[in-house]
């Protein structure tokens, strides 16, 4: 049952991506601003402009442009960025790891904080402190990541300057990297000073992304823990004399985890979407920041490439969550 649903989801991916591609393509072509106008030097002749338009295929009819673009994308060619004059594929490939590392750190932070708050909340069940914790949690949930980014920037960048508020790595640390996964690479090559500096730069933006997500995980997990604790198996374990901590650990937690993963997993895409603004606010060199520049510069090929990248990530994440739930849930293991 569940597995066939996943297969069906797989089959829907190509049309979804095609839809995303078509919408972005059409949207960008009705933009009033002309990308060529932004790259020509003043005093270029109309012939030069026409030549440039032809070079980027902008003189073709819309449908022809779309078909050409689709054919290229299918063969792995995402075109050349107009503003940066490099292959879109290479540009995105160089920036994507920065975003993935940031998002991964944010998810890890959020899970740690969220699980901790949920467990503490469950132990405090029925007390006045629980009410306080729930209220604070609601506050953290209501404020979105980019506002947290501004608050953290103001707090720990300006008023109490503890952490760097811009960039990915201190430029004075002139280090050469083989890959674009700086954090993973510096950890693997045991350059811990570099890793520490990377982490210092990532801490505020990832915290901004993590706080609302942690609050969500905490709320969902706490509700699930409460529900699981009322179930027969937990009551029976209680009657058999197991301590509350043991029951929480052995019986309640594993069962509360599955719905929490299912419900919060989808929200990871929101966290990923949040990187666009948070990266912008902290001048972090990931694909989100690059996307805003691309929109401002009317860089069609780059915007298309970046939005498709995000779409693929979103769809892949949703599928991964479904698979994870299927793997975690013993009832579905033999389905």
């Amino acid at each position, binding site marked *: 049952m569940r597995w066939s649903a996943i297969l069906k989801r797989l089959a829907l991916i190509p049309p979804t991506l095609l839809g995303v591609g078509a919408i972005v393509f059409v949207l960008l072509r009705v933009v009033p601003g002309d990308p060529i106008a932004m790259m020509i030097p003043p005093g270029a002749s109309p012939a030069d402009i026409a030549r440039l338009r032809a070079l980027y295929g902008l003189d073709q009819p819309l449908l022809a442009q779309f078909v050409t673009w689709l054919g290229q994308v299918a063969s792995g060619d995402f075109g050349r960025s107009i503003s940066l004059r490099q292959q879109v594929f290479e540009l995105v490939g160089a920036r994507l790891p920065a975003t993935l590392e940031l998002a991964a750190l944010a998810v890890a932070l959020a899970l740690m904080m969220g699980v901790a708050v949920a467990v503490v909340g469950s132990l405090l069940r029925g007390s006045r402190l629980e009410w306080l914790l729930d209220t604070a949690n609601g506050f953290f949930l209501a404020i979105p990541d980019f506002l947290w980014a501004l608050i953290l920037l*103001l707090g720990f960048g300006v008023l109490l300057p503890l952490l760097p508020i811009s960039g990915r790595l201190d430029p004075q640390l002139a280090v050469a990297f083989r890959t674009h996964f700086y954090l993973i690479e510096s950890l693997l090559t045991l350059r811990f000073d570099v890793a520490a500096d990377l982490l210092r730069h990532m801490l505020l933006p990832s915290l901004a992304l993590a706080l609302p997500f942690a609050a969500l995980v905490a709320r969902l997990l706490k509700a699930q823990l409460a529900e699981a604790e009322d179930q027969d198996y937990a009551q029976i374990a209680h009657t058999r004399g197991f301590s509350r901590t043991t029951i929480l650990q052995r019986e309640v937690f594993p069962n509360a985890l599955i719905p929490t993963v299912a419900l919060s997993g989808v929200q990871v895409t929101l966290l990923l979407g949040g990187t666009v603004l948070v990266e912008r606010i902290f001048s972090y060199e990931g694909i989100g920041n690059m996307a805003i520049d691309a929109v401002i510069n009317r860089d069609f090929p780059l915007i298309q490439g970046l939005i498709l990248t995000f779409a693929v990530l979103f769809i892949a994440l949703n599928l991964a969550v479904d698979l994870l739930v299927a793997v975690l849930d013993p009832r579905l293991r033999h389905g």
Partner: protein
Amino acid sequence: MADLILSGPISAPASRWRSALARGGARLWIGGVLVALLLLIALFAPVIAPHDPAEQDLMSAQLPPAFMRGGEAAFPLGTDSLGRCVLSRLMYSARTAVSVALIASLLAAIIGIALGLVAGAFGGVPDQSVSRLIDVWMAFPPVLLSIVLAAVIGAGLVSVIAAIVVVDWTRFARIIRAETQAQLARDYAAAARVLGLTRAQALRLEILPNLVPLIVTLLAVEMGIAILVEVILSFVGISVTGDTASWGGMITEGRQIVYQAPWIMALPILAVIISVIGFNLLGDGLRAALDPVQRR
């Protein structure tokens, strides 16, 4: 005792309201007060603002709030880098925020509810097309989509509203679709069909009224989101332009001089936070107050 018996049937509607309000609890009250405050400030900004929001006074630029050292009583919350009164700009920005929130969320709601109802009630091809459309929409990063949209349409209030409507109709459509399906599966919907109501009549007379609590809740939440989107678009530089005051614009301006005058960025952030918390609490409170399931 007699009093109780007498008041029973007569005051039934009143007590239903009262119990609904009680279920809403503190969230409903606090959220309602915050939102009412926001609406009042937006409505009466020209009356209560101490200055014209566009009035520049370069001689008294970047003044700190009156309660800080160096502040002046004429500018209770200080001035920005052009010497404009921050308090007045905050108040006029509330107008921008409320206009965007009201118009954008109503339009998003109308489109989303219409599509969600049709998809949920009729199934088949309509459902398939709406669901696929939602799938495509969900594959976009919402922030990026609204930025691209606003860039396409050009800066201005209309562009901000359009960006919110085009991105956020799915919030309504998804939930209304699911809820319509759930309601149609209930006995009362089947009874309506047995009574001879057409599908459209049953939708209008039976299903839609039962969706109202959900819609009200979604609207409150969406208004908070709309205020945030305006801030986002301002931050990227494609929201309202020129002299129109907006919290997002103030935050963006404040960001540039955050080291010299941090309060210029901090105050509009605070205004946004209070509004968003207000709408969230109101939404939560309304959900608790109106949802019959939560009566247990």
